[in-house]
């Protein structure tokens, strides 16, 4: 028999007079894995942060284990048994795993920090999670993303958490690492630790979660057992309309023309032996596990960490791309993985950001292209107060549209998209999928990188699978996930 662990009732919250949540209820049982879903801006993160004590609700009550609580600081939430693993990593790279796990709650002996106890306690938690390849004394800055996440979960557990909030925990993980997270969540459930799970990925939600709560526009839509709902119905509840097919069909009139991007024998410190061709009108998907060299190929093509071996040709002409400026001059665009850190100047206006590539490169700057920027933004269905609005106020999906616009403004012949739909809502995702199809139809060569295999499979005409910095195999579009994974994990063709 399970007991109610958490009951949030009638939660309301506004920022600067703008309501973000109104009258939302959420109940969770002990040991339950509970998904919180909704489009970006639906209020998931705000609700989670109210639970974690980061924000304080304007209205409503929170009961934990039957006691009314009210948090004004994350520390209070921690004391009450609510811990959080947030989207932005919550660790200090300069400190060790053990120091991070105990940060803010260092064990003391005679008034002083007891470092030995810190290491021992961390080792015990990691052992309990079944993790044996993560030394507590390792500096966090030297760890892989997956290991950093384990450190975060260890931190939450060491806080004695009964309830762990996870905000997009798999956003930065490759599929194999997601397996590890699945195991950890299963282990947490066995221990009786409840998990509140925010994710955009339907597969995870259906694989992992017992119940699902759907938010839309700051209001509760439904809260159902996972067994009682299908993925299609869930998406329909999230967006308020049913998206008929997740990926748009290839547009009529799309033809594969001449080779626009050709890499022969490309290699550097991170990848090697890369032979790659992308034709006009073609969408080539790059698949592989985290760290397999996907992003590194994008960075090499774009001149961030250039190829030191092999040759690159754009539209048949050999080019030596040693830095981004040269890539841009050669007609290559790169939509980077991390739009806030690498794509946008957040305090500048939509217009300034959308013109940035034109402003920065005399070779692509022209009055005609500048004049086109507004039309481009409109064609991407950008929702903003106007072109003067600072991009930091836009939702993730609209920010990504600004990034895409800034590159399309330069009218590239080759566009590399690295995780273009990461962390954006379903509606914006769908729009971007259509845009990618349109770009292909216009004759651009598209190189698409995505850690969600389904995206690569659904959109790409050809899939190049990487393993350990090399090309492991090539598959036609529409291949199965099993086929891709066989190459990605180094097992060869299925």
């Amino acid at each position, binding site marked *: 028999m399970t007991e109610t662990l958490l009951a949030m009732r009638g939660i309301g919250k506004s920022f600067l007079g703008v309501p973000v949540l109104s009258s939302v209820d959420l109940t969770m049982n002990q040991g339950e894995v509970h998904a919180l879903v909704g489009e970006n801006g639906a209020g998931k993160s705000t609700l989670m942060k109210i639970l974690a004590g*980061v924000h304080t609700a304007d209205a409503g009550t929170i009961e934990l284990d039957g006691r009314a609580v009210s948090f004004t*600081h*994350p*520390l209070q939430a*921690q004391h009450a048994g609510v811990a*959080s693993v*947030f989207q*932005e990593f*919550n*660790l*200090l*790279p*300069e*400190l060790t795993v053990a*120091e991070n796990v105990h*940060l*803010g*709650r*260092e064990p*003391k002996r005679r*008034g*002083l*920090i007891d470092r030995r106890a810190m290491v021992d306690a961390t080792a015990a938690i990691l052992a309990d999670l079944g993790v044996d390849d993560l030394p507590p004394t390792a500096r966090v800055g030297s760890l892989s993303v997956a290991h950093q996440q384990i450190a975060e979960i260890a*931190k939450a557990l060491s806080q004695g958490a009964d309830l762990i909030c996870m905000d997009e925990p798999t956003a930065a993980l490759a599929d194999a690492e997601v397996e590890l997270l699945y195991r950890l969540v299963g282990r947490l459930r066995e221990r009786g630790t409840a998990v509140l799970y925010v994710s955009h990925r339907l597969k995870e939600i259906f694989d992992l979660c017992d119940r699902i709560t759907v938010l839309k526009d700051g209001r509760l839509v439904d809260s159902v057992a996972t067994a009682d709902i299908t993925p299609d119905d869930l998406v329909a509840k999230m967006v308020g309309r049913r998206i008929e097919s997740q990926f748009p069909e290839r547009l009529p009139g799309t033809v594969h023309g001449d080779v626009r991007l050709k890499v022969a024998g490309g*290699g*550097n*410190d*991170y*990848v*090697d*032996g890369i032979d790659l061709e992308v034709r006009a009108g073609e969408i080539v998907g790059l698949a592989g596990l985290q760290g397999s*060299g996907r992003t590194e190929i994008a960075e090499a093509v774009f001149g961030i960490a250039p190829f*030191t*071996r092999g040759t690159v040709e754009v539209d048949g002409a050999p080019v030596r791309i040693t830095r981004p400026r040269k890539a841009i001059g050669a007609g290559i665009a790169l939509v980077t993985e991390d739009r806030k850190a690498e794509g946008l100047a957040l305090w500048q206006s939509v217009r300034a950001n959308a013109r940035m590539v034109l402003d920065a490169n005399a070779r692509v700057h022209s009055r005609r292209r500048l004049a086109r920027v507004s039309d481009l933004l409109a064609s991407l269905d950008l929702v903003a107060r106007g072109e003067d609005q600072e991009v930091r106020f836009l939702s993730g999906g609209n920010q990504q549209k600004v990034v895409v616009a800034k590159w399309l403004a330069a009218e590239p012949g080759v566009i590399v998209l690295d995780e273009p739909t990461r962390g954006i809502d379903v509606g914006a995702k769908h729009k971007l999928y259509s845009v990618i199809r349109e770009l292909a139809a216009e004759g651009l060569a598209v190189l698409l990188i995505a850690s969600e295999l389904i995206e690569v499979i659904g959109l790409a005409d050809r899939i190049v699978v990487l393993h*350990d*910095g090399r090309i492991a195999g090539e598959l036609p579009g529409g291949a199965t996930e099993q086929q891709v994974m066989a190459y990605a994990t180094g097992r060869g063709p299925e």
Partner: protein
Amino acid sequence: MTQRLRTPRLGTTALIYLALAGVLAAGAVAVALDGGNLFATANLVDMLTRTSLTGFLAIGMTLVILCRSLDLSVGYTAALSSLVAATTMDGQAANVPLAIAAVLLVSGLIGAANGAVTAYLGVNPFITTLGTGLIIKGYLDTQYKGPAGDVPAVFQQFGYTRIGPVPMSTLVMLAVAAAAIWFLRSSRTGHHMYAVGGDADVARMSGIRTGRTLLAAHVLCGMTAGVAGLLLAARFGTGSAEAYTNLYELDAIAAVVLGGTLLLGGRGGVAGTVAGVAILAVLDTVFNVLQIDPFAKDVLRGVVIIAAVAIYARRQLDRTARRPRFAEGRAS
């Protein structure tokens, strides 16, 4: 060639002590060529004496810089403290404990003001401490036209007594440094300073009261500036408002960054700072012995600081570099 050798990297603190040894050796050679001996007692005393004043200021400065803050007001605080000390003592040995308490209180309060404005009003520390520095300067300039107060002989000992070649003030400074090292490593507040400087959001999310930690760093920084003021009073035998014209705060910041503490916070420590202070002191003494124009000292000091930080910046780049999978030349 199957296994790449991992060259062991020197820690930053080890590097800075190596640099100190290098500067000492080079200085000794230069002085010897000039026919002198850098390690003659008089020179040693000069060198060690120079470390104490900057040392006190730099120890406190290390704490605030670790928290990703800054204190440009320490020179003014020290000057004010020297006046508080000398006027409170007023020539009476019996007043010394009261004077020390008064100095620590005043300087601690200045630090608290800096910390509170920075932490709770969200003012950039550069602006906060520039502002408090100017406020103190205005007060000093208006209130004190010249030296004031009288330091009794017994307290002047703090400025002049030596044990062998080692001045007592230097010993006190080293003791304060040791206490600060211990504080950063073993107390929660000290440990949390690295977290606050490394990433304030992460620290806050971990339940660290970042404001309090920053406040504590500023209070301690103010108090070390107070101790520096006590030393000034002991040396001059009187309180001196003019002391702030020596731009001690810049020396302190120079010593801290020379000692390998990241100006952006979160990394470094007092051990490195002490070496940074020592390097500056050795340079000063060598210049003194060689009778080089004092203005050349400023030029060299400027160059040394830039060079040191440039070297650290290079090392920092190496640290963050990704591990190569295909080292050059290994590919088939």
